[in-house]
């Protein structure tokens, strides 16, 4: 297993474990508003610390793999993963937009909506830049 693949397994395990720890109190209290900034900050700090420790451990255990540069297959796999992640994020943003519209929260509705518009502008502009560069 390459270092990149091990790293991806660690990321998946950490997000699943921390995500479960984050969501559990919400399920228990049956309130999606029970967690706030402190919990989010805790999640982020815990993730960064655990991810760093895990990488140090695997780098010590397999230094050769850790020093090996990523190759084209890693990049392609990463790209496919990023695309799947973008679809998932887009679905959540659409859900958030729907909730904001239903609850008449115009601030968040516009943040979600303009966020989608902005991401499409960035996507199209980047694609056009690449088309022109390779033309």
């Amino acid at each position, binding site marked *: *297993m*390459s270092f*990149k*693949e091990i790293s991806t397994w660690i990321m998946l395990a950490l997000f699943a474990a921390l995500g479960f720890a984050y969501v559990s109190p919400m399920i228990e209290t049956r309130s999606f508003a029970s967690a706030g900034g402190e919990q989010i900050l805790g999640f982020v700090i815990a993730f960064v610390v655990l991810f760093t420790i895990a990488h140090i451990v695997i780098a010590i255990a397999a230094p050769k793999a850790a020093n*090996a*540069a*990523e*190759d*084209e*297959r*890693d990049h*392609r*796999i990463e790209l496919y993963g990023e695309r799947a992640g973008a679809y998932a994020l887009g679905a959540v943003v659409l859900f958030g937009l729907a909730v904001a519209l239903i609850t008449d929260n115009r601030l968040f509705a516009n943040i979600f909506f303009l966020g989608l518009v902005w991401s499409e502008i960035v996507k199209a502009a980047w694609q056009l830049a690449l088309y022109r560069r390779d033309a």
Partner: protein
Amino acid sequence: MASKSIANTIRTLRFNAGEMTQSQLAERVGVTRQTIISIEKGKYAPSLEVAFRIAAVFDAPIGEVFQYDPALDRVFQKHAP
């Protein structure tokens, strides 16, 4: 990422090159061992650059390392006259 229309003889070429290991080949080509494994199994079609590098390692023409069968290429068949 796999391509059924492209086969390869890397395993044979490695054997003929003094039983070169996948790790050794990966190091010479500048990819990971997992990528060489995937290419050998036909699960990953490498870029032209990596394909040429592999051929250069064995000092063989690229056609000896990778073989293309148009009959198994759906895109080629779709546009065939």
